[in-house]
């Protein structure tokens, strides 16, 4: 069996996005495919999954982009250069990268698709936030179309708004998406209607990240190893997508239903 214990890694760089989020560049040489995630451990606190938002194999670094949502994410987003964080991974079943694509993200879901946006700079990239203060990675991706609900930056509305039109016009091979599950459900249905494949990166509460504990179950699949990237058609056929997930105790928590 492999030794897969978290390794303490130094933060080399830190970029802040308003008060809500930060990107951290971390020394952690590894193999990586877009869509994969690592487990980040704050000793004595907790350990949670985070997407790799950028990989630099030459420098041996990864970047995490973390939104402050609760104590763990806040702790990680607060790490400064020279601090160390425990890392294990990467884990998970990646996106199947195809150049002829459209990329849709919402909130910190941007982190998961950022490596695809870097790989395919010419693909349309739609990214939504509630408001201008939350916008991340704008310097890195100057060409992405930004949507805010309050119209305080970019276009007003949801990143899914122009999607049917774009699909009709470009007929891409695939749509990649990561973000709030209501948003992804919308993407899935739009893809279905347009006859375009969708690849959806899901989030569930994770413990082991290696397919053993059953914590991240949805529709009998394990998001950590069978996912996090799933075919949208497969998700639409199941019953848990955009419907429910297990909390820490293994109790089903029901999600806000897609309108």
């Amino acid at each position, binding site marked *: *069996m492999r030794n*897969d214990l978290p390794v303490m890694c130094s933060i080399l760089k830190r970029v802040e996005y308003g008060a809500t989020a930060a990107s951290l560049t971390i020394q952690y040489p590894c193999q990586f495919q877009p869509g994969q995630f690592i487990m980040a451990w704050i000793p004595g606190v907790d350990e949670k999954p985070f997407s790799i938002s950028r990989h630099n194999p030459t420098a041996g670094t990864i970047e995490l982009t973390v939104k402050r949502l609760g104590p763990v994410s806040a702790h990680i987003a607060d790490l400064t250069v020279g601090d160390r964080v425990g890392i294990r991974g990467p884990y998970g079943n990646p996106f199947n990268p195809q150049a002829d694509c459209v990329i849709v993200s919402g909130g910190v879901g941007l982190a998961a698709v950022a490596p695809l946006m870097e790989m395919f700079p010419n693909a349309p990239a739609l990214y939504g936030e509630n408001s201008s203060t939350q916008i991340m990675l704008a310097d890195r991706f100057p060409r992405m179309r930004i949507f805010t609900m309050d119209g305080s930056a970019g276009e007003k509305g949801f990143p899914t708004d122009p999607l049917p039109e774009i699909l009709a016009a470009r007929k891409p091979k695939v749509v990649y998406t990561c973000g709030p599950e209501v948003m992804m459900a919308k993407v899935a249905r739009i893809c279905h209607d347009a006859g375009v494949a969708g690849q959806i990166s899901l989030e569930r509460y994770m413990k082991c990240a290696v397919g053993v504990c059953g914590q991240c*179950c949805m529709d009998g699949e394990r998001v950590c190893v069978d996912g996090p990237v799933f075919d949208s058609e497969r998700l639409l056929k199941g019953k848990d997508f955009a419907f429910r997930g297990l909390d820490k105790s293994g109790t089903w928590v029901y999600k806000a239903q897609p309108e």
Partner: protein
Amino acid sequence: MTSSQSRDSLLRTDLFGRTLTSPLILASGILGTTKSLLKRLGEIGAGAVTIKSISVAPRAGHPNPTVLSFGPGMINAVGYSNPGLKKACEEYADLSDVACPVIGSLIGTKAEEFAQVAAAFSLLDFAAIEIPISCPHTPGYGKLARQDTPEAVLEILSIVSGETDKPLFIKVPAAAQNLSELVDASDQGGAAGITAVNTIGPGMLINIDARRPYLGFGIGGVSGPALKPLAVSATYAINEQAPHLPIIGTGGVMNGRDAIELIMAGATGVGMGTAVLDRGIEAFAVIADEMAEWMRDNDISNLNEIRGAAHAK
């Protein structure tokens, strides 16, 4: 003739009054969080599946990291996270679409709790109930609550059997100094069989750069290849002592040879957990294939022919 025998006919196993298509049983605490996972495991070909242990009240479990692979095995301190009895009864209310028998795993900190879970489980379609008295890392339960004494086993069995007629399996600790007393107590208390073994612990690993234990809870239990010798030895000793008690030999089974090894030690069923990490969820099919292949190569047509074969004659 044997050499063309089908896997199912080679591996068919009688346990707790049911006929399993394979002796390979999902161990408790691995994947057994939802009915959808049990169903998938049944389709893959597990002989039976055990649910993650259930207490009366929901438990969030220990903070992460809770499960880590460290080379010789895994170390875990999940801390019995579970949705509690009420939600579990909803989840497992209808097991008719799970293709194999389901074993309920029941935990409690005191008499009323054991009784309450047992009574509720009795109404569900569980083929058997497993009672771990042996967890090395959850306060209030198992070894940390000294449930691993013959007195405690007798008491728990008497409470539980007062509430249900289902076959009861006591899950014993690894490397237990008092194993023979625990087996006697299980037998006297009317247990239908023994699951041997739980993880070995308490164990701890420290990240020296962080100067902290890796596990959120600090201590945990070791499973996987590191544990196999303890599982084989316990199975052998129990089978020697109480040949009439079926054993679900559990610990470190990673391939078909390991499974046959536990059967030669005297096991009837073979529990598997950590194998899912190394061999994937398909382990229950792949390892069954490996067992069948070894049996064909060695002209064995039924597991009864080799059960306990390692015992000195």
